[in-house]
C-alpha cells in the first residue's frame, strides 16, 4: 500500500495555546552525564525584526552519543532521565533558550562519526512547513570531519556553529533571510 504524506500547514500565530504546556528549556536534570551547555539565541526575519511567535525544538543524543529511541541500537549507555527533547517558544525579542548537555558523536553516512550536534526544528507563522537545521559546538575538532557540515558551502558553515560568549554561554542566532542567512536543510 502506498499513501501520500499529509500536506504541511503553518503553525499560525496562536501556537502557544497548543504548545506552551510542554515548554522544555531545561533538558537535562541533575545527574545526567555530560558537559553542561547553555544555549541562547534570537530569530530575526528578512527586515532584521525579531520573530516573537516561533517554536524552536531540539532533538539530541545523550552525552554518550545515544538517542533515547528504540531504533538506536548502539552499544552505549542510555539514561532513563534524559529524553533528548527541548521546546522553547520565542519571546517578544525573538529569543529562545536551552540548558542541556553536549551530546556525544553519533554515526553518520557510511558509519562515519558525526560531530556532536543538536537537530533543530523551527515552526512559525509565515512558514507553511518547518525549517530544519543543526547547532554544532565551537572549537570541536570533530567539526572539520563532519559529513553533514561538509555538504555546506564553506562560507555558510559558520551559521551552524554556536559562538562561545564571554560568560560561557553559547550563542546561536537564526537569520531567516539575506547575507548571513542560517543554513536550512532540504529534508
Amino acid at each position, binding site marked *: *500500500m*502506498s*499513501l*501520500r*504524506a*499529509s*500536506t*504541511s*500547514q*503553518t*503553525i*499560525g*500565530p*496562536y*501556537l502557544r*495555546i*497548543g*504548545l506552551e*504546556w*510542554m515548554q522544555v528549556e531545561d533538558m537535562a536534570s541533575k545527574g545526567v552525564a555530560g558537559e553542561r551547555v547553555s544555549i541562547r539565541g534570537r530569530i530575526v*526575519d*528578512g*527586515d532584521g*525584526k525579531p520573530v516573537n*511567535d516561533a517554536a524552536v525544538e531540539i*532533538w539530541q*543524543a545523550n552525552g554518550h552519543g545515544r*538517542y533515547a*529511541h528504540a*531504533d538506536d541500537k548502539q552499544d552505549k549507555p542510555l539514561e532513563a532521565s534524559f*529524553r*533528548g527533547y527541548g521546546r522553547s517558544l520565542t519571546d517578544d525579542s525573538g529569543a529562545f533558550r536551552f540548558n542541556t548537555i553536549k551530546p556525544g558523536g*553519533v*554515526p*553518520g*553516512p557510511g*558509519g562515519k562519526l*558525526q560531530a556532536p*550536534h543538536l*537537530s533543530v*526544528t523551527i*515552526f*512559525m*507563522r*509565515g*512558514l*507553511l*512547513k*518547518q525549517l*530544519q537545521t543543526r547547532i554544532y559546538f565551537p572549537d570541536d575538532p570533530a567539526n572539520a570531519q563532519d559529513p*553533514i557540515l561538509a*555538504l555546506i558551502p564553506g562560507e555558510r558553515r559558520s551559521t551552524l556553529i554556536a559562538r562561545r560568549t564571554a560568560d560561557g554561554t553559547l550563542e546561536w542566532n537564526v537569520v*531567516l*533571510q539575506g547575507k548571513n*542567512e542560517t*543554513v*536550512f*536543510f*532540504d*529534508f
Partner: protein
Amino acid sequence: MDPAPYRRPYWNTQPEYLFPKYASTLKRAPSQPLVVLPHTLSEVTAPVFGHDTVKASDSDLTKQHKGEPLGERIVVSGRVLDENGKPVPNILVEIWQANAAGRYNHRVDQHDAPIDPNFTGAGRFLTDKEGHYRFMSIRPGEYPWRNHHNAWRPAHIHFSLFGQGLMQRLITQMYFPGDPLLDYDPMFTCVADEKARNRLISSFDWETTLPEYALGYRWDIVLRGRDQTPMENRR
C-alpha cells in the same frame, strides 16, 4: 548499514517556503539554497512520550472548565498512518483551535468575537497501538485575518504530530467538509495538487457520531514513510 531514509515529498503535495499569496512568507521564507540533508540516525529517531506526559482527560476539550463551552460538540477521530500504510502508534498528537465564535484564547487575537470562559481550545492524545486518536471538542468558528482585503479563515483545527523519526514531524490543519471559505484560503490552496488539498478536509462520520450528543468527524493523517529498501548514496 545506513538507516533506510524517509521518502522525499511527492511533487506538488508539500508547500514551498515562499508563497506570496500568504503575505507572511515574504519576510520569513529562506532566500538562500537549501542543503539536502541525508537521513542519518539523528533524522530517523525522534523524542518518545508516554502516559506520564499525557493524561486520558487531555483529549476532551469540553471538560476543562467549570461549565460547558458554547457551540456544537464534535468528536474528531482518525488514524495516523505512514506512507507505507503502517499505523504510527504511541506518538504525541497536540491540537489547538478557536472557540465556536471564531476567537482564540490568546493575547494577539483581537477579533471582535467573545472569549468563551469555558473553552481553552487545547488538547493532547497519544496514538494507540493501531495509530488511532480521538478528541472531544466543539466546532471552531471561522474568523477574519489581515492577509488581504476581507480575508477569512475557514474553520480548522491545528494538529501537531511527532512521529517515530524526526523526518515525520508534522504540523498541519484539519478542515471541515463543505466549507465555502476553503477555495479563498491561501493556506488551504498552498499546494498545486488538488487531491493533496482535499486530504486536509475531514469527513462527517455517522459511525462516530454520538446520538443526541455530538457530531463525528473523521480525519486520517499520513506521515512520511521509510523507503522500503535501503539504498546507497540516495539523495
